[in-house]
């Protein structure tokens, strides 16, 4: 039954993708940014679905199992505040500039702002390198989830292959419009299924109050934040959600909006979406301690799946599997499409490899790059170590630390290509420095103070941007006026 529900779900996703392809005009703008026609509701759902990975279901519950309710304050409420702020101050402006200049990627955005090919190329390399592990985590997560839900009957590569095949199917057929439509469906699915799972399990536990009493009797420290999260960690974690301002896949969705006012719904309602997904995940993770006390290491990652297996093995396992696949695919699709867009626009088209690109050839190349990227990630998933999951916070750290470059492009007239380059190089240097010291240590902080590396790297990025800009020659007034009226 589990597999039947999952296969039924994947079929529904493919049908939506195929349906959206009927609206596709064979132009690069239509394929890569849906002809800039996406309305408020679809933009909200697709931005949220793209941003949230399977971590919001499985990772959040596992983390809450280990350290308690503090996970919500650490991760969910920081995103609830910072993501809408970034949409307001950065997203809407990026859309306005992008729509005026016909931009499709961040690299084009940076090149147009400062007139520097080198900065664009540097940013391209950094974005691709930061995004690849993020894709890999999603593909591997899908395989592992299916294996656990089927009690080992389905090997990990099967789940990964299913996800990759379906994503290739609807992304190449419908482009960003298909991706946005499917994401709207998928986001609704994982929000609904997360809530249904929570209600069913909590009801069987005797209600929230009774379940909390049991946890309070055995592990009272899980019901407070206590010492599990250092105050400086709570303070500095707020910078991590700023990564939403530099994710290439979020950038593509911003550019797909119909008009600037389309951003209003995502700005206001984003915290509601976060609460709908994270409250059940955190509570279920904490309640996992009632039936499965003492899980340690990787075993604790599967606490939600263990609870489902215990309380409603068939129906819920299938529904949760579909929900996890939805969460994974709604990120993987946009990520692979954004990489396909970048390779097509920032490399092949920009450097005129093979001459001028017609609109139909842009679409063809975009499709081929999506297939290539997803296929490469699938092959990598067969040989990658599971320790790669620890890379996610490092990937977010890198993206978040690049945000000053985008903000300077939109708000600081005196910023220069030298400043942008200095910021990016500083981020690379500091990121490597901290990564070498902290990778594999989940609670790593700067000098053991509780301060997360992102705080130092972000500050370094700002300082380098300012010094580099003041030393460099500013762009002319005409160029600046296209970004700052």
């Amino acid at each position, binding site marked *: 039954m589990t597999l039947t529900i999952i296969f039924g779900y994947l079929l529904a996703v493919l049908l939506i993708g195929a349906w959206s392809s009927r609206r596709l005009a064979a132009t690069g703008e239509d394929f890569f940014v849906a002809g800039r026609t996406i309305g408020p509701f679809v933009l909200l759902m697709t931005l949220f679905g793209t941003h949230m990975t399977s971590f919001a279901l499985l990772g959040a519950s596992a983390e809450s199992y280990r350290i308690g309710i503090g996970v*919500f*304050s650490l991760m*969910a*409420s*920081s995103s*609830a*505040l910072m993501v*809408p702020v970034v949409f*307001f101050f950065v997203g*809407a*402006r990026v*859309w*306005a*500039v992008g729509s*005026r*200049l*016909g*931009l499709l990627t961040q690299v*084009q955005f940076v*090149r*147009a702002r400062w*007139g*520097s*090919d080198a*900065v664009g190329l540097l940013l391209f390399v950094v974005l691709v390198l930061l995004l690849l592990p993020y894709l890999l985590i999603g593909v591997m997560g899908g395989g592992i989830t299916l294996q656990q839900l089927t009690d080992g009957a389905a090997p990990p590569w099967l789940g990964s292959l299913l996800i990759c095949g379906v994503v290739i199917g609807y992304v190449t057929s419908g482009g960003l419009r298909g991706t946005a439509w499917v994401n709207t469906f998928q986001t609704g699915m994982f929000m609904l299924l997360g809530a249904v799972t929570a209600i069913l399990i909590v009801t069987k536990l005797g209600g929230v109050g009774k379940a*909390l009493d049991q946890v*309070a009797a055995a592990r009272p420290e899980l*019901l*407070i934040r*206590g010492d599990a999260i250092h*105050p400086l960690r*709570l303070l500095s974690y*707020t910078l991590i959600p700023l990564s939403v301002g530099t994710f290439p896949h979020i950038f593509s969705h911003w550019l797909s909006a119909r*008009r*600037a*006012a389309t951003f209003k719904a995502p*700005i*206001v309602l*984003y*915290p509601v979406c*976060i*609460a709908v997904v994270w*409250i059940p995940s*955190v509570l279920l993770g904490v309640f996992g301690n009632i039936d499965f006390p003492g899980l340690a290491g990787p075993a604790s990652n599967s606490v939600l799946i263990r609870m489902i297996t215990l309380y409603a093995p068939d129906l819920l396992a299938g529904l949760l599997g579909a929900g996890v696949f939805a969460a994974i695919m709604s990120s993987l699709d946009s990520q692979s499409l954004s990489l396909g867009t970048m390779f097509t626009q920032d490399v092949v*088209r*920009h450097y005129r490899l093979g001459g*001028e690109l017609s609109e139909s050839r842009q679409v063809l190349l975009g499709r081929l790059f999506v297939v290539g990227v997803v296929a490469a990630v699938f092959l990598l998933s067969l040989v990658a170590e599971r320790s790669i999951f620890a890379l996610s916070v490092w990937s977010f750290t890198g993206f978040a630390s690049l945000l000053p470059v985008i903000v300077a492009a939109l708000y600081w007239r005196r910023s220069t*290509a*030298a400043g942008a380059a200095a910021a990016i190089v500083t981020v690379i240097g500091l990121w490597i420095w901290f990564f070498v010291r902290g990778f594999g240590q989940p609670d790593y902080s700067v000098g053991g103070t509780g301060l997360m590396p992102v705080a130092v790297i972000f500050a370094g990025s700002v300082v380098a941007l300012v010094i580099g800009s003041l030393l*460099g*020659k*500013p*762009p*002319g*007034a*005409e*160029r600046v*006026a*296209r970004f700052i*009226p």
Partner: protein
Amino acid sequence: MTATAIRRLAYAALPVLYLLRNDFWFRFDGSRFLGLPIGLTYHILFSAAVVLAMWWLVRSAWPAAELDRLAAGAAAGRPLSPGGRDAAPPEGPA
């Protein structure tokens, strides 16, 4: 209160929210409020406060005129040329 003052207040609400998110005062409080641990209830209510603040922000401080100027091209500028290359002359250090 003038529109400018309301807009400034809406902006000022953001750093206040940032500070309120760091609820050091409930760090060791194990009591319950609205049926949940108070540390969790606080952050759920905080998320609701963010929704209200964002609604206020888009109502009172939405930079419509500026965004229109950027999008419609009232500001000087030209679209990218075919090939994705920047049409403006290169300026500043590369």
